[in-house]
């Protein structure tokens, strides 16, 4: 009778927002909400990068032993292959802050100071031609960077295929290439 119903008990203990300051690190990237205080420059970011990132991502973030380039690809979204980098792909600049802070350097995630994250983000976006050499990256400036891929995202609208259950006299299984040929006349 009560199977699957919520029980009339709760075992959660109250927790205060103040308890979660070290936890609550996700950035609302469209507007930069929750970006912390701090600031970083391109040259400072170059230093951070060369100390903590270059081993994996290579000289000037152009690709290293364990990961491809972090630079370029802007304008490639209508080409094949699309080249995916923070510059070309991220719709909102603060995504880079959020990701680097939580996940990079891969061998020591969450080890960078906020200033270091701002700085290395300035360096990477500068290499991508999105911010000038003298840019000062902080909570305000980061949220304002105009990202080329900003309007490229659409929400899921599947089902988008409308296959039918044909049992006999059907069109043989097609290929990706067949899809670009004109559709067969209705049968």
């Amino acid at each position, binding site marked *: 009778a009560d199977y*699957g119903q919520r029980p009339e008990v709760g075992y959660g203990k109250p927790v205060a927002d103040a308890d979660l300051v070290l*936890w609550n690190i996700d950035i609302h990237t*469209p507007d930069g909400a929750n970006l912390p205080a701090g600031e970083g420059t391109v040259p400072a970011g170059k230093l951070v990068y060369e100390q903590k990132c270059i081993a994996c991502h290579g000289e000037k973030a152009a690709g290293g032993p364990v990961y491809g380039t972090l630079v370029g690809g802007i304008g490639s979204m209508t080409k094949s292959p*699309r080249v995916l980098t923070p510059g070309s792909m991220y*719709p909102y600049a603060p995504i880079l802050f959020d990701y680097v802070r939580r*996940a990079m350097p891969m061998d020591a995630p969450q080890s960078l100071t906020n200033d270091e994250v701002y700085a290395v983000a300035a360096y990477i976006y500068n290499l991508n031609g999105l911010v000038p050499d003298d840019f000062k990256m902080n909570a305000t400036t980061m949220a304002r960077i105009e990202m080329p*891929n900003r309007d490229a995202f659409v929400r899921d609208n599947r089902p988008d*295929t409308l296959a039918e259950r044909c049992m006999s006299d059907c069109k043989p299984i097609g290929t990706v290439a067949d899809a670009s040929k004109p559709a067969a006349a209705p049968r």
Partner: protein
Amino acid sequence: GAALAGAGLMTGSVAKAAPLPIPESNTVMGDPIPAESYGLPTEFEKHVKRRRSDVFKNKQNFSDWSMTPLQHQIGIVTPNGLFFERHHNGVAKIDPDKHRLVIHGLVDRPLEFSMDDIVRYPSVSRFHFMECSGNTLTDWREPKSVTVQQSHGLLACAQWTGVPLSWLLAEAGVKPEGKWVMFEGGDGSGHLRSIPIEKVMDDALLVYGQNGERLRAEQGYPIRAFFPGWEGNTCVKWLRRIKVVAEPDQIRGETARYSDPMPNGKWRQFSMVMECKSVITSPSGGMSLKGPGLYEVQGFAWSGNGKITNVDLTFDGGRTWREAAIEGPALDKCLTRFRYRWNWDGGPAKLASRAMDSTGYVQPTVEDIARVREISGFVQHHNGIFPWTVAQSGEVSNAIA
């Protein structure tokens, strides 16, 4: 009995040169039972392993994946030791006694839970498949995989046990503005996904049990989110933080990753549900048929939108289809096994399966998908009909093209 085909029965019972010997195993003691143990497969089944992605090779093995040997899976339950993996920074190690789960954000009462707190709730157990959104990514325009482990092995099925997430969110008290829920992991990537509140309140679970035991570390021990029928990466492992929000943060994993290339440079995002799909696991790539005769064609069908109602098979590349038997229990959002008795005439054949689910959705071909999406080098949600060819030699090969 009825007349039987089969070579053996044609000849009489002529005695062999020497009688069958007594097997050695009957004449020696077996291995004794140890005081305590957690058993493992026999050495003769050593080849049945989950394997790291070896068609698409990642340059490091921390943000990487391993694949379930579907060609060896028997029944619908995937043994935990063979359950596929996808991690973004390796397998986190978490002491359950120290682990804390927090619910905060747009709630009336932010809450903190220990594992002892969580397991004290009543629980539910449900059988569901789990599939990675990138499953079958190597095989879109042309055959890259040899085996079905390589092509479809980011797929597995288990009985999951845990607590409905809706209970804990109701306990925290979701504010009216709370429309999405963010889930964050305790791994070195801080993996994070935002989920619409409707799904969370519908059938989402906080799971700590898988196939009769606590989660393995690779599956998020001590606790993970589980969204039945939704892509594996939404089911955040090593779960430590749940935040109710008004709209998603749009972080990297919600924009630059787990989004699907669409025409005109667009990207489809928050494409969570794993639509109806199926694949023949036997015969499948790398196998070899031993001459004409009866073969039971077997495979899996599954849908993130409901139950499997029908599976059809073609042997002539899609011109004609015949209905396969579905073996029960055929559960909601669960791997479902189909079987069909095929008499191979020894000639070349092109086999494929096509599943239909309880919403009436029919599994498309890659051609159908390619007409509406622009998948280029970044394959997600490839649920296309997957053909294998059987050559006259009996060799079975990947026939995607």
